């Protein structure tokens, strides 16, 4: 059941969406597993294969079981960490909304079930930003290694402050006051999102964005970020969210389109749905297609974006690499900055980043050890 237009580079996506069977050979299994690990999707692969009753060879079986063990542990830790975050913020009376993975987890959404969690993304009112930072610092989360330049860059131009890292547990919080940079081509009012946030049942005051906003935020986040390390994972999150919300609310798709218009996020919505349908098959109700058609960019730009995102959404794995990928990833990186700020800010910033990368002060990679 290999769809005709499916490229080998998209094999992982095809298997994860049930559109292709895993390769039959041992080497094929090894390559599939390796791509899944690289894309932080090994536990999801395990879940998908289990759900579709596919027999897995022993050398792949134990690795998938291991990935599931690790994912469950991370999810348990994340749930605990969320409680601590809530405690720190609530004791100072700061209201907050969970974003992305932590929101899926708190709300018990299917998107959280086999997800590899990373940072904790929080949204607070801009006026509460300082209070939230202080409260989190009281809980042990501090700015560990942002240079003075990074501090200024984040605080003046970004929609979030530099990441806060817990001094003993190492968990990382991204604290946002809106979902796109204030200088961005998208103008989204964080207050509007907060006004529509919903409490999570039985969670002692945790809040998440309303379904349409949750989906739109995850789309904006995916398509304005310069690094697509988790591109495929985030796209599959969206697939889970769309199917889940549609199942529970027949009016969801109409509400989503309407909300995208209000927030000015039609373009990211178009990109997300285009690539979702390319990889996972028909998702959008047919009656809404004409409306969605209106959201697509004009032609040369559309082709360019389709190519760039096709590359970005693949695992960064040698087996998926094709000629021109390096250029595409570089263009995505430049584009992410282009979307974030006007040229007069962008050029000096990129020059500086290039300089720091060429002559690094320190490096994040592990040292080899026994």
């Amino acid at each position, binding site marked *: 059941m290999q769809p005709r237009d499916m490229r080998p580079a998209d094999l992982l996506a095809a298997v994860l969406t049930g559109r292709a069977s895993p390769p039959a050979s041992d080497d094929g299994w090894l390559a599939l597993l390796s791509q899944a690990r690289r894309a932080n999707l090994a536990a999801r692969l395990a879940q998908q294969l289990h759900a579709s009753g596919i027999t897995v060879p022993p050398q792949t079986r134990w690795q998938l079981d291991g990935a599931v063990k690790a994912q469950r542990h991370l999810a348990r830790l994340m749930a605990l960490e969320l409680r601590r975050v809530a405690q720190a913020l609530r004791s100072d009376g700061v209201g907050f909304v969970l974003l992305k993975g932590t929101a899926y987890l708190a709300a018990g959404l299917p998107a959280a079930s086999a997800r590899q969690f990373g940072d904790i993304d929080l949204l607070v009112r801009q006026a509460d930003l300082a209070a939230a930072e202080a409260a989190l610092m009281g809980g042990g989360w501090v700015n560990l290694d942002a240079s003075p330049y990074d501090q200024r860059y984040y605080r003046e131009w970004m929609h979030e402050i530099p990441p806060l890292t817990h001094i003993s547990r190492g968990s990382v919080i991204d604290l946002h006051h809106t979902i796109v940079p204030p200088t961005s081509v998208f103008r989204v009012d964080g207050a509007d999102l907060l006004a529509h946030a919903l409490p999570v049942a039985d969670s002692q005051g945790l809040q998440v964005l309303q379904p349409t906003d949750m989906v739109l935020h995850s789309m904006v986040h995916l398509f304005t970020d310069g690094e697509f390390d988790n591109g495929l994972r985030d796209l599959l999150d969206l697939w889970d969210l769309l199917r889940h919300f549609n199942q529970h609310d027949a009016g969801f798709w109409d509400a989503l389109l309407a909300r995208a218009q209000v927030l000015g996020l039609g373009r990211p919505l178009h990109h997300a749905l285009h690539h979702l349908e390319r990889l996972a098959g028909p998702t959008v109700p047919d009656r809404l297609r004409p409306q969605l058609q209106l959201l697509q960019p004009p032609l040369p730009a559309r082709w360019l974006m389709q190519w760039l995102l096709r590359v970005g959404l693949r695992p960064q794995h040698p087996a998926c690499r094709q000629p021109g990928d390096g250029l595409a990833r570089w263009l995505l990186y430049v584009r992410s900055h282009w979307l974030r700020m006007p040229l007069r800010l962008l050029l000096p910033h990129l020059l500086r980043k290039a300089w720091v990368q060429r002559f690094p002060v320190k*490096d994040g990679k592990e*040292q080899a050890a026994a």
Partner: protein
Amino acid sequence: MAVSATSAAQSLRSGGLLLQTGPFTFRIRSPHAGVARNFNLLYANHASLAQSAPVDFDVQISDGAAWRRYWRRQACFVFDGRAVFEPLPAAHAFALLEWAMNWCISTHAHQYLIVHAAVLSRDDRALILPAPPGSGKSTLCAALTHSGWRLLSDELTLIDMRDGRIWPLCRPVSLKNASIQVVRQFAPQAVFGEVTRDTAKGDVMHMAVPVEHLRQVQQPALARWIVYPRYQAGADTCLQPRPRAGAVVDLARNAFNFHFQGDAGFEMLCDVVEGCDCFDFRYSRLPEAIAAFDALANDTPGA
């Protein structure tokens, strides 16, 4: 059947060399001559596998940045298409491969509770030696390997989460700095690799697994003794019982993946320690140390 030297070097450079070590099969690729030379010395007696055998880990010790291929050449561990560690000088390529294989096992093989400890056995009763670097654990492990104890692993104690059996990994013992000379003198009959100088841990050299130990790679052992060795210059040999309660916590702290195992991991460690006698061991002279462990195996500690 053993891997022949020239074909090993060729496989490492092209399609990859298959190595089975304990329960794991690696496919190794590397253009570095140092990897091939040490491989031929240290893995000559490991079983060679058909190219079509199923593989667990695909590892590469590749060149670093292209512009450094001819000037201050580097070795870089690549796994799942990404560089896992910082690149090292090309001369460290084989040591990097050994570290890389340990990393693959300890970060993925959660069907085992993996404790950072040397493990040997006598009649399938396992002796676990957990200890921080510099405590003389590997030196002791190498000496015991050539004194009637069967080597299971000098770094990774693989406790099967299903039944608590400890599985041999059968990888070369890693010796550092002064212990290189000590072990060469103690066991001149042993097979050694080349000395890698000036790594992050100083000089490193590996000692091959004796052939008769390799033949028992399918033979697991059950934990019987947990001994915390400490080398102390000039010290008298001293084996002293220590309370078992602390050993559970201590093994958990020394395990790579205790946290992933949940409650089952804690229960497993309790079971392991339940069946063990625990000791602190201080030594400076290897022959006396060996005698102490022989007494332990004959159930006459302190005799």
